[in-house]
């Protein structure tokens, strides 16, 4: 009896052991084969009902299709899974968790909104998920990585951050407005958001350096619908130019500026004006507006700029917003990092991403190292990503800066009074 019971127990134990081994083998087998042929899965979280946010998912999908048409990367197909966060940080975090835990993605591309990217960042750290934001601009994103590298190293910042953006805009304004038009004063007009806090700080530092006195600094609520009082306040200071920092808003200030014939030119960053549909959205009121952006129609910043813009416009009917360029590049950068790492292990991917040296649709992409205060942010400058400035002229985005590539002259609507004209009167 005792003997037979012992045998039964032994048999059971063997069965369990054998079963475990079998299960383990089954579990490992696909993991091994995953190394070679399973698709690289990239979760892409965008904002489908916002002008800039909608470009992110579209461009990422296009990048995956383009790579897959060429047979994928290292024999692996790229699979893009898209999520809409409805411009809400809470929805973005849920989408992120779902992407990681349920859809088992290998990397995530997320948002143009700094508040959203900042909400997702701790989750990228906790869940060890390599994550790139193609459109957010707050300097805090990469500052977190710098301050606590071991924890936050999974986060990468794929767009020019606010400080870099402000410096670029100051360079643009100097070449376009201060030099030729003898402008001397400005008012900063920014929406109240995470990305504009460092932007405005840098504006206040760099504008006086290029010779533009800052007469007033207006931060308005993004829910504002009537901009008349704001323009009135600006006009009372008689600045030569309004330097903008707007992204969540765009149509209303632009249309009201035009309809009320505010005689001061608008330059700076107006993210919605970076897409071709803005002309229609504003009924042409955007005529004369100057904004920084990723690339301009017909200007070859790199060998792929024009073909990307054309293919995107053909496929979706509108030109890509600024973050469409970076989103397209980020899919390529992630796929190449997986190939270099030879694995989708997050830590190995982070190491590979750090070694990124990729010429994309708008410039050469490299990420800052640990020594930079903006760790894992893209390098900004003439040799890397610098962006361009465009002005809306007769319904078209015309490249006006950098002046060595873009030769077009500025043109303003009749209601704009430029300093020289004002002096002549």
């Amino acid at each position, binding site marked *: 009896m005792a003997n037979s019971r012992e045998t039964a127990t032994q048999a059971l134990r063997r069965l369990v052991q054998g079963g475990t081994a079998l299960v383990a083998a089954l579990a490992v087998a696909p993991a091994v084969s995953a190394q070679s042929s399973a698709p690289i899965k990239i979760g892409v979280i965008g904002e489908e009902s916002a002008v800039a946010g*909608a470009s992110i998912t579209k461009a990422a999908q296009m990048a995956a299709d383009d790579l897959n048409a060429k047979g994928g990367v290292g024999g692996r197909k790229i699979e893009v899974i898209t999520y809409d966060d409805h411009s809400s940080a809470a929805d973005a975090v849920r989408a992120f968790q779902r992407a990681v835990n349920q859809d088992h993605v290998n990397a995530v591309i997320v948002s143009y909104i700094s508040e959203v990217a900042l909400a997702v960042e701790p989750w990228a750290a906790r869940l060890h998920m390599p994550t790139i934001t193609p459109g957010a601009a707050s300097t805090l994103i990469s500052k977190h990585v710098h301050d606590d590298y071991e924890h936050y190293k999974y986060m990468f910042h794929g767009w020019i951050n606010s400080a870099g953006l402000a410096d670029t805009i100051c360079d643009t304004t100097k070449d376009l407005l201060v030099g030729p038009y003898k402008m001397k004063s400005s008012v900063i007009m920014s929406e109240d958001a995470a990305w504009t806090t460092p932007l405005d700080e840098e504006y206040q530092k760099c504008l006086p350096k290029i010779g533009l006195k800052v007469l007033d600094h207006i931060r*308005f609520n993004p829910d*504002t619908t*009537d901009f008349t009082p704001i323009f*009135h306040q600006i006009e009372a200071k008689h600045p030569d130019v309004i330097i903008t920092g707007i992204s969540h808003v765009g149509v209303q200030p632009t249309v009201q500026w035009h309809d009320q014939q505010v005689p001061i030119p608008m330059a700076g960053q107006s993210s919605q004006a970076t897409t071709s549909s803005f002309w229609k959205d504003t009924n042409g009121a955007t005529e004369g507006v100057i904004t920084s952006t990723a690339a301009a129609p017909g200007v070859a910043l790199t060998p792929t700029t024009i073909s990307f813009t054309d293919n995107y416009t053909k496929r979706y009917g509108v030109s890509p917003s600024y973050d469409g360029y970076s989103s397209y590049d980020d899919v390529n950068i992630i796929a190449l990092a997986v190939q270099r790492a030879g694995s989708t292990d997050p830590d190995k991917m982070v190491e590979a991403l750090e070694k990124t040296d990729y010429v994309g649709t708008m410039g050469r992409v490299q990420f800052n190292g640990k020594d930079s205060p903006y760790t894992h942010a893209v390098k900004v400058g003439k040799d890397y990503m610098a962006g361009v400035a465009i002005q809306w002229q007769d319904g078209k985005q015309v490249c006006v800066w950098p002046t060595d590539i873009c030769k077009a002259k500025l043109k303003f609507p009749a209601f704009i009074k430029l300093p020289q004209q004002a002096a002549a009167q």
Partner: protein
Amino acid sequence: MLGLQILIDGFAIGSLYGLGAVGFTLMFGVSGVLNLAHGGIMLVAALIGWLAAGDLGLGTYAGTLIGILAGLVSAFATYFVVVRPIQRSKAIPREETEIFVLTGTLLWGIMIQVGMAYLFTDNPVTMRPLIGGIVNILGVRTPYNEIMIAALCWIAIGLLWVLVNRTQAGKALLAASINPRGLTLLGFELSNIYLLVWTIYGILAGIAGVLLASFLGLSSANAGQLTASAFSIVVLGGLGSVSGSLVAAYVVGYLETITAYLVAPTLRPIPALILLVLVVYIRPQGLLGRR
């Protein structure tokens, strides 16, 4: 000059608010319905008008008319799909009908808002002004469009006054707001009167939506706020009182404009809301309320 600027801007805003609120209050007076889908209906008018004027290439005037028509259609949809079935339901106790209508229209308004955001994105749309250009009024640069909006609002309100006070149907409408039971005893069909008030409401809300789109621009994200502002104005003026709503519309319009110019644009809606709370405490029947 700042004073004049406030006077002009506040008048344009107040006129638009007034137009939006008049239909809202008239409907409450006549049929006891508080339509919380109000902002949604203005939104539909604005978006369809914008679509017709721009994408469909019909131009601003045709677009404006189509927008108003869209407002009317969505008002009818609200009535026939949401309000009337609730009013006629035997399962809902009489005394709870109004609460059910309130809830029904609120949910309907959210459905419109989300649906429109899906179809049109939540980016604001702007109609091209019917008349472009500006005029200088004693140093204040005023768009012609702003003047025309105020004028159109008053023409619409004037026509409404003529309709209510000078026509047979209008008088029945007025009577219904005073004593609906008496009116049915006289042999009037209440459902026809309801239909008339929804027609008037739809047209007024449609005009307000399209004009707002040409003045400040309108997005699906604004729908809730539009309902809230109409609701506040109507409560402030006295529920069901048309003249009270008009007075309240200008009070709110000017309070907001003064705050925006003299304090901060960000704080714009706050004083009007404080006033509303005070009115609810001190004079619950509103400025010109009957009860």
